[in-house]
Structure formats: structure tokens, C-alpha cells
């Protein structure tokens, strides 16, 4: 094989496929950590029963101070992910077929579903959903960041923004739960973001079209 994303793993007698570069993984984990910190600090100000979470950040004042700055980190970090991954998340015809068969998706019968490229429809919806939510959360968040931006909007606008911020945050947390659960449920996925590679079998089972593309790229012309 020429220099490619495909490697032989002799010890396990299987093929290994590179999926995420080191920079992509760093980019992902900065985003992940800032999202978790945002969720914890945000939830503590969302419901009194969760106010104890402010203890993680040094109390209520510090939580209020630092939450928006986590948001700034997330926006820049997610922008990096967006630029990296948007072309692979464009909608394809097979995605609609995948979406039309939720029973096969949820029961893990990948063999009954069409061959997929780098991402399936669920992953694409997570990607676009998060992209839109982060734009909305950033906009509404700036509006209620009173320390710096109080003077720029009316109180009525801020009321709308604070409600929107809470609602969008709940949606983002729901998408995050789907994202994390899917990564755990579909075994062999987490190593893509930890080690950067997946096994050939994983690629064959879940993203066969992508595997075929990688194989075609590796073929010496």
C-alpha cells in the first residue's frame, strides 16, 4: 500500500483506517470540554435544585463570570470543527433512506440500510443541529451578558433572549446526549476520537461507502 489512511494491524489480523487527525481530535476535545463546562455552569443557573453545581466553579459569582467565557471558547473551537467537517455533512440521497428506516437504525441492523459515506444521517443532524444551536446560543448569550453588553438591547429583548437561551441550551444538551450515547452504543466509535483510527470492520459495517473511497484512494494508479 502507498501512503494512505489504511494500515494492517498484524497482531489482531485486521485492517485499521485513520479517521481523525491529531489536530481534529484536539479541536474536538476542546469543544467537548467547553461544552460540558458550559452545561454544568449553565444548568446551575437554570434550576435552583442544581445551584450546588456552582461549587465546581468557585461559587455563584464565579460561575456567572466564567460561563460566558466558556461560551467564547466553544464558539471559536466549534467554528474549527465546522470548517473541518461541513463538506462531509452535506445531505445525500442515502441519508433520506437511512432516516426512513428508524427501526433498522435503532435495532442496529446496519446491513439492511444503504451503504453510507463518512457520516450517517444521524451524525449529520447532530452536526447541523449543534451548528445552528451554537449560533443561537451565542447570539442570545451576548444579549444577556450584562457585564459588557447591557446597554445595547432593551429589557424586553433580554427577556426573550434569556428564554431562548434556556430553550436552546436544553436542545443542545439533548443533542449532546444523543451524540455521546451513539458513540458508546456503536462499539468501536470512541477510538476514532481517542486514537484517531477505527477498525476496518467498523468502517465496513457502518460507513462502507467511506471505506470503499479510502480503499480507492490507497490503490496505486
Amino acid at each position, binding site marked *: 500500500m502507498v501512503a494512505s489512511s489504511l494500515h494492517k494491524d498484524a497482531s489482531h489480523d485486521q485492517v485499521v483506517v485513520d479517521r481523525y487527525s491529531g489536530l481534529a481530535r484536539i479541536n474536538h476535545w476542546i469543544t467537548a470540554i467547553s461544552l460540558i463546562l458550559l452545561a454544568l455552569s449553565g444548568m446551575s443557573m437554570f434550576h435552583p435544585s442544581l445551584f450546588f453545581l456552582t461549587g465546581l466553579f468557585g461559587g455563584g459569582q464565579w460561575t456567572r463570570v466564567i460561563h460566558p467565557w466558556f461560551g467564547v471558547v466553544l464558539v471559536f473551537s466549534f467554528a474549527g470543527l465546522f470548517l473541518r467537517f461541513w463538506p462531509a455533512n452535506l445531505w445525500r440521497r442515502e441519508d433520506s433512506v437511512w432516516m426512513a428506516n428508524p427501526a433498522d437504525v435503532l435495532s442496529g441492523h446496519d446491513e439492511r440500510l444503504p451503504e453510507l459515506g463518512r457520516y450517517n444521517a444521524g451524525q449529520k443532524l447532530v452536526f447541523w443541529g449543534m451548528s445552528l444551536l451554537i449560533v443561537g446560543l451565542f447570539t442570545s448569550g451576548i444579549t444577556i451578558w450584562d457585564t459588557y453588553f447591557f446597554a445595547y438591547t432593551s429589557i424586553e429583548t433580554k427577556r426573550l433572549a434569556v428564554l431562548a437561551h*434556556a430553550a436552546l441550551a436544553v436542545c443542545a444538551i439533548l443533542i449532546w446526549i444523543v451524540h455521546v450515547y451513539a458513540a458508546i452504543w456503536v462499539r468501536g466509535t470512541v477510538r476514532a476520537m481517542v486514537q484517531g483510527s477505527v477498525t476496518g470492520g467498523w468502517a465496513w459495517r457502518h460507513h462502507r461507502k467511506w471505506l470503499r473511497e479510502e480503499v480507492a484512494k490507497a490503490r496505486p494508479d
Partner: protein
Amino acid sequence: MAANQGMTLLRKSASDEKPPTVLPGDDGVAKLIDVSKCIGCKACQSACLEWNERHEEVGFNTGSYQNPHDLTAESWTLMRFSEWDNPATGNLEWLIRKDGCMHCADPGCLKACPSPGAIVQYANGIVDFVSEHCIGCGYCIKGCPFNIPRLSPVEQVVHKCSLCSDRVAVGGGPACAKACPTHAISFGTKAEMKTLAGQRITDLKSRGFDQAGLYDPAGVGGTHVMYVLHHADKPEIYAGLPANPHISRLVGVWKGAAKVAGLAAIGAAVVGAFVHHLLAGANRVSKEDEREATHLVEEAD
């Protein structure tokens, strides 16, 4: 200021001051501001700054007596001056309203606050901000229907009129009422203040102010700061006093349905994920999948 747990005074020696005695089931205390008696001297503003140890910056004149130009985290009360051309009489009326916290029975600030104990409502009706628990988020500013609380850029906590809860706790009245030279500001039980207001309204009506009345808006459950207005049918002419104040519906949804539905949705998603894993089991890559992949790659070589 820390929360006061003062005892209720019944009598006070060598004093004409009758401390308001609030018993359980009473309507609590109230401050009555008689707009028709106010001369705009700002003694109340000075007394407020002095008693509460607030320090307003030296301002600038823009052609209005109103100074400072708005409530601030320092100035918890403000004389608002309005000029109103009365169409019925052709008179130009100079309306002066002492603005500040209304101490709503249903306080929007308290409903919006996310920090336990940062806003308290005493049994006597006073709504007080407890700075050591305030996190400076400004949610109370969004909850308030009267646009009263102000975020201090220095302390990063929010301030407003405390109705001098520290003075009331030891049987005194608010500093503004004490300083007022025309008795435009009175303080006592809410029942007493309503009686006093009734007398003033009768007097004003006999002087040609047919629409004189009491401002104790029901939309916020009544307030513990009330106004006697000579034009109670048009509260807006007094520097935008709202005719029917109520907690914004957006704040109601945010602090009501959204909180419950949000946590429920998140909880349901977590439970749903667990249940799915129990029922569907892990989605594993089979040996056959690995063989197929190896075969595909070797074929290509």
C-alpha cells in the same frame, strides 16, 4: 445587606413615632407617596444615599431638574420630573414622582432570581436583595415590571430600594419618609396607608381633581409602595408609570414551564438511552465485518 430578623415593636418610649405593628394575616407595611404634596426637593434622595451609604457620582445638567438622569446602583430612589399639558384645563402641570422599588406582593425580581436567598420577601411585604448571595447575573432586572434594579459595575451585584428594611426591623421608618419636609412620604401598615390615601383622595377630589386615586396595581398582587396620584386614570403621564404592570409572560414561561419541561426532557433522554441499550444491546462489529474489510483492502492491493 444581610437579611434582618427584627422583632416587631409594639410601643416606643418618649416618641410620637408609632412603629407599624404587623400581625400575621395583616397586609404588612407600606410606604405611601403622595405625588400631589411633593415639591421635588430631593431630600429623600439625599437621605437614601446617606442612610444606605451609597455614593452617587457628580452628574451633569442637561436642562432637567432630574438628577441623576436615571436610577443607578447607587441612587435607589429618584425624583422623576415630567411636564404635562393638561388638555382639559390648558394648564401645564409639573408632575414629580419619586421612583424606586414598588415592593410588589408578587415580585418579578424574586421569581427570576437563580441564586438561593439572594432576594427575600419579608412577612411584612418588604422585598430585599441580600448582596452576599447575589451572583450579579441581572435576571432580576429582566423579571421586574417597573425597571428598577440596577447592576453595579463596581460590585457586580444588583441593588435597589430596601424600604430601609434595617430601619423597619428596629421599629423605624424608611429614611426618605423621615427626611420628607412636606409629609409627601408616609409609612405605616398597609391598612393605615390606605386609610390615609382615602382621606387625601377625598381632599383632592374636592379641589377639582376628579380622577384622583390610589396606585396599588393588582397585576403584581398590589404593592407595598403606593402612590396617591391626582390623575390616577393616566399613570403613564408620571414619567411612564405603567397602567397595568405585570410580570412579563416571557419571564413566566422561562421560570415556569421551561424549567420543568427542560429538566424532564433531559432526564427522559438519559433514561431513554439506558433503556435502549438494555433492549437493543451494543451495536458490535462482527468478525465477519473485519474479514470483509480485510478482503476489500487486500483485493485492492
